[in-house]
């Protein structure tokens, strides 16, 4: 139990640090793929420090509250995950956190952030089913929703759930806000709705959103780790490969429109996940 708490607190402390470094490496690799030198690895940290010193401009104070909710529930979801708790609770807290950000975007009276919020909701609709499928997949393969028990299983989940793994990788693109799914808000404001969801946040609020995004990234990569949990080295390698592929995809694709985002995730990804689930269900002969 103490170990669980330690892991949870380690997440709370280290996730932003690792997330920031990961973002820095991401920016560097992206730059090199584009033929540029790229910023220093610590650039995301410099950006964050600068944002914290900037004035927070917002027409309504409720925006700040929602952003705080976004952070707190994200931290809760990640804590629960690394604590080894229930995967379903992790997913629900995670969804709640995203909803808080959407509410924050709606709180400002800006057409850009409103359209961004609408697109974010659509993207959540595209992503949530797969997250639930993932939880169900882990349950069928291991007989438990608890992360602790899943990771203790001697057989890697990847063996049973390759379809769900692929579907989840698809969703990761949406959650990381990378092309082709950077339509609600992208990492740079070159979009027809400026910066969409986060247009109306500035200063400290924007800094909090940025930190939350780092928490989010680390937690999502944690789920990928779970697929190969019995072999830690291989699992870390797997996570790295997934992340590198995400960067590559970001650099080889245009931003798609919401219709395409919905269609592709509900057909390709959901189908992949659902078929995988059904096959495993009968293969294992309703084990639990």
């Amino acid at each position, binding site marked *: 139990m103490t170990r669980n708490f330690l892991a949870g607190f380690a997440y709370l402390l280290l996730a932003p640090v690792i997330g920031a470094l990961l973002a820095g490496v991401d920016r560097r690799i*992206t730059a090199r793929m584009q033929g540029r030198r790229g910023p220093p690895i610590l650039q995301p940290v410099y950006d964050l420090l600068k944002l914290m010193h900037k004035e927070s401009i917002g027409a309504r104070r409720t925006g700040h509250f929602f952003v705080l909710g976004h952070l707190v529930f994200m931290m809760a979801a990640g804590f629960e995950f690394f604590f080894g708790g229930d995967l379903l609770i992790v997913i629900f807290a995670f969804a709640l956190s995203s909803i808080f950000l959407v509410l924050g975007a709606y709180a400002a009276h800006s057409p850009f952030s409103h*359209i961004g919020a609408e697109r974010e909701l659509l993207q959540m609709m595209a992503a949530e089913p797969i997250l639930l499928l993932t939880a169900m997949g882990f349950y069928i393969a291991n007989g438990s929703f608890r992360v602790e028990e899943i990771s203790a299983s001697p057989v890697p989940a990847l063996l049973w759930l390759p379809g769900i793994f692929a579907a989840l990788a698809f969703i990761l693109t949406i959650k990381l806000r990378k092309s082709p799914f950077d339509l609600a808000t992208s990492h740079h404001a070159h979009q027809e709705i400026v910066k969409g969801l986060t247009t109306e946040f500035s200063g400290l609020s924007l800094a909090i959103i940025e930190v939350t995004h780092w928490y989010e990234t680390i937690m999502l990569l944690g789920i990928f780790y779970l697929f190969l949990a019995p072999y830690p080295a291989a699992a870390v390698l797997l996570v790295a490969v997934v992340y590198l592929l995400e960067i590559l995809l970001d650099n080889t694709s245009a*931003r798609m429109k919401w219709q395409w985002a919905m269609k592709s995730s509900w057909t390709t990804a959901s189908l992949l996940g659902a078929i995988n689930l059904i096959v495993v269900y009968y293969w294992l002969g309703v084990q639990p």
Partner: protein
Amino acid sequence: MGERTVIPFGPQHPVLPEPIHIDLVVEDEHVVEAIPSFGFIHRGLEKLVEKKDFHEFTYVAERVCGICSYIHGMGYCQAVETVMNIQIPPRAKWLRTFWCELSRAHSHLLWAGLLADAFGFENLFMQCWRIRETVLDVIEETTGGRVIFGSAKIGGVRRDVDNDTLKRCAVKIASAAAEFEELKKVFRDDYSVKQRLCGIGMLSRDDAWTLGAVGPTLRGSGVRTDTRLEGYAAYNELKIEPIVETACDSYARCMVRMHEVTQSFDLIQEIAARTPEGPVFEKPSGYPNGEYFARLEQPRGEVIYYVKGNGTKNLSRFRVRTPTFANIPPLLHMLQGCELADVGLIVLTIDPCISCAER
């Protein structure tokens, strides 16, 4: 049926680095109405002709636009030369053509990058601009400037380029052309690019013609036209085949420009090999008296320079009708009923340069 929202687009907008403002009335993401406003940067450059010596005005003409600057300066000179009945030396003609094609290549590459950025393809954007940098280097090596060439002069060109430099530049351009072919394939074949361009911003052949579209916008709608065919400068000695696409959508306009870059690269190499020896400048005498409409092909399309002289050192009227100005009515037509996500992209497919449209 969603609620109607008005989304302001411009005059300062990250996707569109041009000061045009469009009020987009949207239902969900569907644009019901697009109401444009212009005139944020009317500088009255045409009026300046009454204060400036007609030789000095070349510098002003070059500054009508920051991207297609050279052809503005050269078009002005060509109009004045016709009024004054000056025959410029052949080498000057060839050098002008050389710089014209460099302008076209660099303008189209810049545009391709902006388009890629408009549909969220950052890598493609950076790669286009990387190749453009080679073209800019050639421009800097031959003229001394990167976007403002400062090489046009009434009676010829302001600086000669020795043949060794021309040859060296041709080699650089050849390597840029090879790299560009790789990028062109991405624009031509990539699934996500085609998803974003095909069938978007339709402009039928008839609409393009009656609304007065010019340049790649017109050629992308299947009209075979190119002012270079008239054979100004050294174009009468070069073989120009206008690039025409018939799909009438954004993809067609994009492909027209892509093929034109290749064409320009080929022309640049041909010109570098064929430029004749001789003087590059003939001193004009007297003052212009008379009027002339010069027509040239800018990267963005046909451009008109009207010059009216009254026998003094100041012209009584200089007018430039830039291609963007002619392409605004077709743009309004294309924007009706499009998707919000496509607005920036459609505006870009006419390659807008609002600053030169308003002068």
